[in-house]
Structure formats: structure tokens, C-alpha cells
């Protein structure tokens, strides 16, 4: 019996393509009304996961429920209750914005009595009123994106899948797009979004990080950040190239990289900072500013992947 407070629950969800394991034994649960982000590079298994959850691809083993429906036993029930939007919006360029909405309302069999009301409402909240009679091909990228979102939810699905939905859009439009998503989530819609774009993941309430088919972490963004061992410090110093070489040679620094005029250093422990500063001073490096910075989700992802690779190497040493 599945828990109906959950939008999605997976159990050892796995997909093979021949010898290739695209999705390996992943387990996660998302409460209703959450915005869950699946983050990882291309080829990590995100799209395969979405396809299985949408009921359009059968898993090799394991299962999942979406809104209480089992993806193996009841994929048709799932298809009716979800909206799906991908980077390649499937809009008809030779129809107007309004006609596209009408078309999708018909495809999703929205009852005639509700169609007009739903469309008017969506045109309102997505701000498309001034563009409703424009041909879709004449709309800018950002407006097409909003229209694609409106089309994906014209049947008022309680669950929305976004597959790389905001790639290439300018930051202003992207924020407005996410404002719409938050509004829907506020009304109880559950959202699963995939992205390989790390700062996009910031918009999600909870994040699952995928790498080579595996779910290597799942938590709220701030918990993920806090899970990074050590501290990240930004220092302004001169000459920066010599400083980097000195820091690289110290066992206390995990990484030292140049960011414009600044050096970012990762220390295994905050207590090492004093030693680092002393060492720079001894080598006649002028340090003008030191500041601790918050690690980005990309920092977290890279640390987790390095750990994963190290472990994979050790495992193969033991077994081979």
C-alpha cells in the first residue's frame, strides 16, 4: 500500500540497456507539493528516470509509484495525471498561443465545460494575455517557454515533470518562470525537475544528485552544502600564481583554484587557516583579504563525485 502523502516513491528502480546500467537501484520519496530536483551531468540517468516515472518506459527491475499509481501495473492512470515539459517544447509554430492551448486541452481530453475556463486562467497567470493571438513562431524564447508550461498544465495535473526546462533562457525570465512553478507548488502541485545546470538546482526544495545511474546524495540544498567537509575560503593575494603553487603543495589544502583576481581554497579543517596564512606570509605573498564563502551546489557535486570515483577505484582494487 503506498502512502498517499507521497507524490513519488521509488523502490530499487533500475533500467538496463543491454550491458549498460542507465539507472541503478535508486530509492527516493517525494512528499506532495514539493519541488524535487534531479541533478547530474548528461548521461547520469535523469531522463531515463523521468521516462519510467511518466509510465512511458518499463523498468528492468524495481518499481515506483506516482501519485499512488504503480508504474508497472497502472502506467495509463499516471499519464492522465501528469504534465510534462522538456527543453524541446513541442509547440505548433503555425498556431497562435491560444490555439496551442486549445489543442493541448483537446489532447488531454479536458472536459469542454472546463476548457475555456482553464485556458483563460492560464493565460492570466502566465502573463500571455498580450500575446494570445500571436503566432507561436513569432514569440521570443521566454514566451514560448511560458506557453509550453501553460500547455503542459492545461489539464491541471497534480504532478509536473520538467526536463531541462529552462536551459538558455535569460535570468529575468527564468526567475519569472520559477515564480510560476512556486505558485503551482503552493496550490499543491508536485514538481520533479531535472537539470545539469547547477545553479538551476538552487530553485528546488530538495535535490537528488545523480552520477552514472546512481543517486549519490539526496537532501535539501542547505544540508548538502553543510555536508561538505572543511571550509571554503576566498583570498585576495599577490602574486596569485605563486600563492596557488605554495598552497597546492600544502597537505592541508584540498584544492586551490584561481577565480579571476581571487584564489579559492578548500581546507580540510577550519583550524588550518592560520597555518596557511603564516605560510603565505613567510613566502612574501601579500594577502589583502580573507573571507569564508558558501560552497555552491557544484562544489558539493564535485566533492561527492570525487569521493564516488575514489571508492569505485578502491572497490575494483579489492575485487580485481
Amino acid at each position, binding site marked *: 500500500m503506498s502512502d498517499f502523502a507521497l507524490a513519488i516513491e521509488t523502490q530499487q528502480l533500475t533500467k538496463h540497456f543491454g550491458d549498460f546500467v542507465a539507472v541503478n537501484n535508486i530509492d527516493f520519496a517525494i512528499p506532495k507539493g514539493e*519541488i524535487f530536483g534531479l541533478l547530474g*551531468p*548528461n548521461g547520469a540517468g535523469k531522463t531515463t528516470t523521468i521516462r519510467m516515472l511518466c509510465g512511458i518506459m518499463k523498468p528492468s527491475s524495481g518499481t515506483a509509484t506516482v501519485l499512488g499509481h504503480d508504474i508497472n501495473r497502472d502506467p495509463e492512470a499516471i499519464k492522465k495525471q501528469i504534465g510534462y515539459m522538456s527543453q524541446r517544447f513541442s509547440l505548433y509554430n503555425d498556431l497562435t498561443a491560444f490555439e496551442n492551448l486549445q489543442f493541448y486541452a483537446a489532447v488531454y481530453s479536458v472536459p469542454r465545460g472546463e476548457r475555456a475556463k482553464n485556458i483563460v486562467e492560464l493565460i492570466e497567470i502566465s502573463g500571455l494575455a498580450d500575446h494570445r493571438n500571436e503566432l507561436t513562431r513569432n514569440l*521570443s*524564447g521566454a514566451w514560448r517557454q511560458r506557453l509550453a508550461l501553460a500547455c503542459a498544465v492545461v489539464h491541471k495535473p497534480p504532478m509536473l515533470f520538467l526536463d531541462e526546462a529552462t536551459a*538558455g*533562457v*535569460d*535570468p*529575468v525570465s527564468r*526567475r519569472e518562470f520559477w*515564480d510560476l512553478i*512556486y505558485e503551482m507548488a503552493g496550490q499543491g502541485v508536485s514538481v520533479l525537475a531535472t537539470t*545539469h*545546470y*547547477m*545553479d538551476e*538546482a*538552487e*530553485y*528546488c*526544495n*530538495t*535535490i537528488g544528485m545523480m552520477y552514472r545511474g546512481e543517486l549519490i546524495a539526496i537532501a*535539501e*540544498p*542547505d544540508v548538502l552544502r553543510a555536508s561538505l567537509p572543511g571550509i571554503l575560503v576566498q583570498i585576495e593575494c599577490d602574486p*596569485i*600564481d605563486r600563492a596557488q603553487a605554495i598552497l597546492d603543495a600544502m597537505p592541508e589544502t584540498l584544492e586551490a*583554484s*584561481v*577565480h*579571476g*583576481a*581571487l584564489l579559492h581554497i578548500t581546507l580540510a579543517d577550519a583550524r588550518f587557516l592560520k597555518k596557511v596564512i603564516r605560510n603565505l606570509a613567510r613566502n612574501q605573498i601579500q594577502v589583502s583579504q580573507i573571507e569564508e*564563502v*558558501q560552497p*555552491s551546489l*557544484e562544489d558539493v*557535486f*564535485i566533492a561527492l*563525485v570525487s569521493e564516488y570515483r575514489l571508492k569505485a577505484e578502491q572497490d575494483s582494487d579489492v575485487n580485481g
Partner: protein
Amino acid sequence: MDYAIEARDISKYYGKRRPRLALDRISLSVGEGQLFGLIGPDGAGKTTMLRILSTVMELSSGQTRIAGFDTQKNAEQARSLIGYMPQAFSLYPDLSVIENLNFFADINGVPHGRREARIAQLLDFARLDRFQHRRSALLSGGMRKKLALACALVHDPKVLLLDEPTTGVDPLSRRELWGILAQVVLQGVTVLISTPYMDEAERCHQIAMLHQGEILSQGNPADLASDLPFDVIEVKARPRKAMRAIVDQADGVSDWRPVGDRLRLSVQNRNGNGNAKRILKNLQSQFKRQKMEVHILRPSKISMEDVFVYLVGQQRGKR
């Protein structure tokens, strides 16, 4: 100061009958040995600007110089000093890594005596030595970008122009590319890079934010951030509803928006950071009074996205 790259009042129109303005009087200058970022979303005009600077496209009006050479009057001299990496995959897929490097050395007239050492150095630098005999069609996306970068560097250019080298690249390769670029810059090459990713601005010495063919602002990233008339506070407290209610009523908060698991609040900073401090204290005591769980309550760094969004708003207001 000597400028390696200078552009003065560059405009570019596309189309004859109904010309469309792609670049509107763009001026920028990049000092020798600097890493300059041209930041902007798709369609802002980044590729057009790079094509003009690399002498492969004519401009409609204005003037550009590379290491002092006018790119129109002295195109040949300018071109010999430029390494250009276009956005599209520009390598020969059926040639191996080393064959591609040799090919680019040939067309750029790198003499045979110097070539071997230079290619060996670049292979090492881009960590491609193990793959030198692999056909480039069989390289991963990240390795292709590194090879394209190595090819653009094979003739020891003074100026490197890179058109969105990190677009679509996975996070690990992206970080590696930026590491390589930082080393290129430390070796004295001047680099101009375009990117749609706002977070990459912080890797540059100077940036220009480009939007719809216009420069919104330029300078070093830290100055652009501190020029904003507001500070940002981050809040994560539970229950969520109570957090929203308190933030919504809080005095002095001009705007707030949800971002993932937290709220980002904009507070005016006309009189230094006193306002932010007062609001932090005020929120802290309200959360405490309601016995809420507080996970985050701190001043946040202004992101380049914050800067971009603000500047676009200002520009819209002007019109």
C-alpha cells in the same frame, strides 16, 4: 595601460531590407593578461561580438583593435595574434587528436622546429596525451572542448577568444576547463570568453553584461555586486508558512522571493549595512518568540544573477 582588445562603438545590423540591430554601440577594452567575461543570455549578441573581434565578420560601424592592430585595416596582423574557438564543434571528426593539432599548426603557419614541443606541451596541459591517437569523433564532450582549446592555442596567440566553451559541458569538465583557462591567463595570454552562465562571471577579472545587443554594465564582478542599492539576506526557518508570514510583515524588507529551501530578502543599503543588521536581529527575535526552527539566517552574497536582474529592471524603467 596597454589594451590587448579594444572595441569602440561597435554596431552590427543583420539583413538588408529590414535591418535588425544585433549590437548597439558596444565599447569595451581588455588589458593585457586579463580574463574578460562577456556574460549574457542566448540572443544577447555574444557570438556576433566574438565573430567581429576575431575578424571573421564585418561590423556595421565602429572600430576594433587587437594588440593595437585595427581589425579592418590590418586584419592579417590582427588575425595572426588571435586564437579563436567558435561555439560549434570546429574540429575534424575523422582526424585524431594529434592530427587535428598538426592541422591547426599548419594553417596557422607554425614552423616545424617549434611545433613538436608546442603540441607536446598542449597535450600535457589539457591532459589529452593518453588520447592523442583517438579520433576526435570518439572523444567525450569535455575532451572535445579541451582539444578545441588546444587547437586555438597551437600558434601561441596573444589573445584568445572563446565563444561559450562551457555551454552544455558537464560540471566536472567545466571546472577542469576553467582551471586550464586560469593557467593560460597566468602565462600572459589575454582571454575574452562569452558565457550564458552568470555564476562564471566570478572567474573573470572584468566582465560586461550583455542584453539584447547592449551592455548593461561593465567592471569587475565585486564592484558590480557592491554597486547594487540593496543587500540580500537568506532565511530558512520551519515551519515554512510561519516563516513566510513573518518575512512578509517584516519592516524594511523591500522584496523577497523563494529560492529552493530558503527565502532571499532584498533590503535597502543606502546607509551601509545597518539596515540588514537590524532586520536580521528583528527576524531572529520573532522566530525565537514563535519557537521556530531556524536553519539559515545570514547576509548572503549578491550573485551575478541578482546584478543582471536588477540591471534589466533599471533598463526597462528607463524606456
